């Protein structure tokens, strides 16, 4: 069996006011990838291409060993998909939806569905029309999770949810990963959610992947170094520093290639290092996007 859940290789899609350009991405089995980007960055387009809902203009897409979009019907047996803008049928009850999905997927796990009903505090007899946004999202995820698909593709599943609902959903997604044959691609512009559950991170901006690696690498490589410049000392330009903000004698250097040598190099140049700070995923994301955009303008 192929050990990769999905691959995108040189994928492009042209729209009148937006281009998805040369997207390369790989998600190994047993991993959960947070797919982060600002609004309009191309997250949903990429995910729709992965689902075969939108056909790429160029490049190769393979999901669970199936070429997309040609083999989408076969691939979707093992993909659970939920997106922020996906709705269930208002006029039908959750129970009807559960019976509908169960009639299609032999993998439907009824005891697990019952457990999720309790955990998500959902009433199966209730019509979708009467559910809140959070309940609708949880209902859609219940239908996806109870099928026990090998790959979950979730487009902004926690957007607009209250903290309790978000916590419930993230907990379920974490539980899914106890089975190392299953994988999740999880798009969001909420970096806290992604930081909490992902072990792989991909940043996308303006239709291009700007960085993709495991979460630990991100957290290890990005640092903010606060320094003080004694009079007459200039801050040296060091490799790996992508941003410098200076105010008088104080400066903050941001690096995406921290290896412990950088503070010593500053000290050697006469700069006093006050602190080396770790960065949150959100700070890394913002710096990454800004760096990428400045590079594009340069």
């Amino acid at each position, binding site marked *: 069996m192929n050990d990769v859940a999905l691959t995108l290789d040189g994928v492009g899609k042209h729209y009148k006011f937006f281009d998805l350009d040369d997207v390369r991405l790989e998600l190994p089995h047993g991993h959960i990838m947070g797919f982060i980007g600002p609004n309009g960055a191309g997250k949903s387009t990429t995910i729709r291409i992965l689902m075969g*809902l*939108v*056909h790429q203009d160029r490049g190769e897409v393979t999901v669970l060993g199936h070429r997309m979009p040609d083999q*989408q019907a076969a*691939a979707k*047996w093992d993909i659970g998909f939920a997106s922020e*803008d996906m*709705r*269930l049928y208002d006029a039908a009850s959750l129970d009807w939806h559960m019976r509908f999905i169960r*009639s299609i997927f032999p993998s439907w796990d009824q005891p697990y569905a019952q457990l999720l009903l309790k955990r998500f505090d959902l009433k199966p007899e209730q019509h979708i029309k009467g559910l809140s946004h959070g309940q609708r999202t949880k209902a859609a995820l219940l239908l996806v999770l109870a099928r026990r698909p090998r790959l979950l593709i979730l487009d902004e599943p926690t957007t607009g949810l209250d903290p309790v609902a978000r916590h419930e959903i993230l907990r379920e997604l974490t539980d899914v990963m106890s089975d190392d044959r299953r994988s999740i691609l999880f798009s969001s512009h909420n970096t806290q959610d992604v930081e909490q559950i992902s072990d792989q991170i991909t940043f996308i901006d303006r239709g291009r992947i700007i960085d993709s690696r495991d979460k630990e690498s991100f957290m290890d490589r990005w640092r903010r170094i606060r320094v003080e410049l004694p009079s007459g000392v200039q801050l040296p330009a060091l490799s790996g520093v992508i941003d410098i903000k200076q105010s008088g004698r104080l400066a903050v250097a941001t690096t995406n290639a921290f290896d412990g040598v950088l503070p010593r190099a500053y000290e050697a140049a006469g700069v006093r290092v006050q602190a080396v700070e770790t960065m949150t995923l959100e700070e890394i994301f913002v710096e990454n996007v800004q760096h990428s955009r400045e590079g594009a303008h340069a």
Partner: protein
Amino acid sequence: MNRALIARLILKDWYLSRLPLVLIGTTGMFSIGLLYLRREVTGTIALITALTATILLSILLPLQTVVNERKQHNLAFVMSLPISPLEYTAAKVVGNLSAFLVLWAAITIGVLGTLARTGVFGGLVPFGMVVALEPFVVFCLLLSVAIVVESEMWAMLTMGATNISYSFWFLLLKIPGLPQELKSPVAIWSRPILLMLAGQISVIVASLALTFYFQSRKRNFV
């Protein structure tokens, strides 16, 4: 083609459209019942009611099962199931067509059959067939546009344009000899009537075939 899954999707659409289908079916049966009273007033009401029922059916089904599904953001849910775009198209066309045909045929056969059995109004049957077939034509055009274009606005424009086609019946009555044929106690299948029927059937076949053709070339589904 995954026939089992297509069948599930068809049953799903029937279930979600059950209320208008039952109401239209009941109205159609009521209009046929009125014909048995054999009075001119009730007969006229029956014909108008039966025609209205089939016109409503031709509009409501594509709106409910295709346009609303997209408008209410249900399409992503359906397309997340293990189906190809062509299987989705097949489910929509077959599901809509079968639901429409069952009710349309029941109402049309009921009304025209009752007229033919009177032995007095048999001449109305060929013209009645042209009239009855028009909602079928409108239904197929609307279904085709709804599936292919996926736009509520285009569906509305199609409804408006096809509504105009109903007014052409009055022009048909200017065809020499036709008014006399209508008064005949038995059905007369004249050349103009047969040409009209052939034209309508051609539009039905072409619109359904073009639906599959355009869907097979479509690149964005949600």
